[in-house]
């Protein structure tokens, strides 16, 4: 493997997944073979990442520094997600393969150095996203997928328009070392890229798809959305916009930064306020995600810096892992309830599986930013950075919004410890080994990042 080039590794990854897809047609053992092949592909790719620190295809594609670090983390999460998905049903194996393709899109997005590669990679992720929603087999999945597809397509077209403006402004599509000839066009292009980022990440007011999609997708697929869409798209857009804003005329830059800040604060407030009144826990997660996108977007307003990149990675990974943990545990609780989406599935959860209830409480408290959890360390790091940059009003506003957000996080914990006779009669929740493994990893990461954040990713 050491002698294989990056391209060969990618091809192996694609070939194994294609073989997995084909082997689904084999009777009886088809899904096991497909699952095995997908798993091998993911593990092989993960191992490949440790061979070198830089992967370059051409000027169009480079993976280096923090991008490789991020990819290693996402790749590990990908392997874990495949493990937890299991091979018990055809749907799960199918979504495992879709995840692999989404992951591939993520790899290309991360390394993209020019707008066409960027666009193709982004669309690959989006297409798989539509498919994951559509194949979720829930009551309104297809309707949600169509809505998502239509809105996504409109944004894709707008992004292409932005690319055209960018071409007009810089005379090329390269994202590295471009010389800006026309500042007006450049500012319009950046504005459109910001809009695309807001849509893809689900920021207010471009969040219309997020609640529908989240509530009509299976929890496993929802988890995937977190660790691939949020982490990779979030990281790529934020770091890219940071760099592109450097070349922007100060006047336009100021306007664009102001717009981002307004969107960030509005997202934080909107997500947290609307999250409280939701009845379905998937929708609560959706709006919590809108709020967290707000926190994240503020990073666009800061100057690019390697340390900041590491901090962004740590925030994205930790947030996504914790949210994934919440989703996976909710999934376990939901399975034995009649209405799987109802927000009362957690009632008396503590009496049905103490371990799971405690892990879920820890995850939720971490998302709420309680000290000694990763959520606190990340929040502290991020907000201190914002204050350092002088964004005092914006940061204070986001802080205030997070007070509102605490309400729905605490509701989860409160439900778990509520004694509800009807719910207590439900059978004890069993946990598979792979699920326990993932829980252990998430718990470990929450506490290690919470207690020793500086140990990772150069945080000081």
């Amino acid at each position, binding site marked *: 493997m050491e002698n294989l080039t990056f391209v060969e590794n990618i091809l192996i990854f694609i070939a194994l997944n294609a073989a997995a897809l084909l082997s689904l047609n084999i009777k009886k053992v088809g899904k096991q073979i497909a699952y095995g092949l997908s798993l091998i592909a993911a593990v092989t790719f993960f191992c490949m990442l440790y061979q070198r620190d830089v992967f370059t295809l051409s000027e169009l594609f480079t993976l280096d520094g923090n991008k490789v670090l991020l990819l290693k983390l996402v790749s590990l999460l990908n392997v874990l997600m495949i493990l937890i998905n299991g091979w018990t049903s055809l749907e799960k194996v199918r979504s495992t393969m879709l995840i692999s393709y989404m992951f591939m899109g993520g790899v290309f997005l991360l390394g993209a150095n020019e707008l066409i590669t960027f666009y193709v990679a982004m669309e690959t992720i989006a297409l798989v996203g539509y498919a994951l929603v559509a194949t979720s087999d829930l009551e309104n999945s297809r309707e949600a997928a169509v809505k998502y597809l239509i809105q996504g397509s409109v944004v894709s077209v707008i992004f292409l328009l932005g690319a055209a403006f960018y071409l007009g402004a810089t005379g090329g599509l390269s994202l590295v070392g471009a010389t800006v000839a026309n500042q007006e066009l450049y500012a319009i292009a950046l504005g459109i890229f910001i809009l695309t980022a807001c849509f893809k990440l689900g920021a207010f007011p471009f969040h219309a798809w997020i609640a529908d999609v989240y509530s009509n997708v299976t929890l496993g697929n929802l988890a995937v959305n977190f660790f691939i869409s949020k982490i990779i798209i979030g990281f790529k857009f934020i770091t890219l916009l940071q760099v592109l804003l450097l070349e922007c005329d100060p006047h336009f830059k100021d306007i664009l930064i102001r717009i981002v800040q307004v969107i960030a604060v509005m997202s934080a407030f909107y997500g947290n306020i609307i999250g409280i009144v939701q009845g379905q826990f998937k929708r609560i997660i959706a709006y919590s995600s809108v709020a967290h996108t707000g926190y994240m977007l503020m990073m666009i307003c800061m100057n690019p810096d390697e340390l900041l990149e590491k901090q962004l990675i740590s925030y994205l990974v930790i947030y996504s892992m914790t949210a994934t943990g919440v989703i996976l545990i909710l999934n376990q609780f939901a399975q034995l309830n009649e209405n799987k989406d109802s927000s009362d599935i957690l009632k008396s959860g503590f009496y049905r599986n103490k371990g799971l209830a405690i892990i879920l409480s820890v995850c939720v408290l971490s998302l709420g930013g309680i000290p000694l959890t990763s959520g606190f360390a990340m929040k502290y*790091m991020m907000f201190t950075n914002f204050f350092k940059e002088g964004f005092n009003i914006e940061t*204070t506003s986001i*802080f205030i919004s997070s*007070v509102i957000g605490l309400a729905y996080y605490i509701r989860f914990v409160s439900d778990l*410890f509520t004694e509800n006779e009807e719910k207590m009669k439900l059978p004890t929740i069993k946990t598979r080994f792979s699920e326990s493994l993932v829980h252990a990893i998430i718990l470990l990461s929450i506490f290690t990042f919470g207690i020793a954040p500086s140990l990772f990713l150069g945080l*000081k």
Partner: protein
Amino acid sequence: MDQLFIIKFLIPLLWAIGFVMAPKQNEKAIKLFALIGSFVVLAYSIKMYADLPDPGQLTELFKFDMPLFFNLTYTFAMDGLSGLLLILNAFLLVMVVIATWEIKTDKLRLYYFLIFSLIWAVNGSLLATSIYGFYIFWEAMLIPLFILVGVFGGENRRYASFKFFLMTAGGSILMLAAMCYMSAMAYKLNGSYDLNYEVIKSLNLRYSGFWSPQSLVFWAFSIAFFLKVPVFPFHSWLPDAHVEAPTAGSILLAGILLKLGIYGFLRFVIPVYPQAVDAYRDIILYLGAIGIIYGALTAWVQKDIKKLVAFSSISHMGFIIMGVFSQNPFAVKGAIFQMVAHGISTPGLFIGVHYLYTRTHTKKMEMYGGLAKVMPRFAVLFFLITAGSMAVPMTCGFVGEFMVIAGTYEINKVVAILAATGIMLSPIYLLKMYHLTALGELHHEENKSLSDISVLEAAPMIVLSVLTILLGLYPKLVTGMFEGTINFFTHSGL
């Protein structure tokens, strides 16, 4: 530095973990383990105070660098004030264990685990002198109490625990915002996020009106502490929490947790933001006075005895906040004394309410009446504690409230006069409570067969009654413990 500090400090936590591993079936052994633990905690708290070379100065007990946590330094230190509250905390633990000895629950291990964890977190807050350490323990306190109320509380425990957690944690987030802001400033200044006293002082946060940094940071901290105390109008969680909390929760909440808000002001606000304190002193004094009157009037109209005690707490805490912000040394001393006095009388009232409730299964005062006839021992002890709470001369309540009013009078006469009306109101509602409970005819048939409190049950009430009188007659026993620190809390102690 105390080499054994960490071991001493971790004792309540280790004890809490011990409950997790204790055998579930042997209730008596678990209770005995809790009792021993409570006395151990009390003993080492007293020893730690006794070992202080000078209670008037902060003595560093332990310091450790956290290179892995943003390169911060955690310092644990103690002076007369923190030592006093540490002892009060441990003392209340003993009271809780004894007063709830007969508790019937199938989650006994969880119950004691939560109580000991809570005590540990309170100790951590009292000893931390870096803002981060304080904040971490401050937040850590919320979780055990949240679960204690949520699991062992009354009918509406879910709502009460939710509201308590949300409001206090919400306040904490504002404190965190202020900390992040100061950290960012510290980083610009020193290249480090650390926020110990020296660093905070070197930040020199500018004060030039409401929107200036010192003012905003002051209010962020103050709102967090107002919510904890709680000061009117930030009090709405307290009556619910008290009413729904199990007795242990109510005792610890009233006895020590509310005082943490005041302690926060004394340790991290008053010495650090002198200009803002001066600028907003009158506003806070008025809030304190309003709290005194509002709490008293609201207590007056309550029919639920626990709610009455809860509102009386709001009234009493008004005196403390007033004394602390008057910045008059006599009043500050009185306020700190009142913290201890309230930490004795209100837990005593809650213990009394617990005994009433376990016998009558109601908290409605109209369902009591004439209980002195069937529970004379209880009636006498309950009266002594009630007298302490209503600030009868020669009881601890009187000393603190008198000192606060006298000291505040020198600063703001109107506020002092308003507060004095509180002293007049407290006998009204507390005597009404006592009258409806113990005096009069024994109207309710079912109450005629009530048994008086046992010797074990009487023990905590006897101790609290004795302290009520003793501290009323000889307040120096407490004031002498923290006297040297007053200067730190009245002037810019840094």
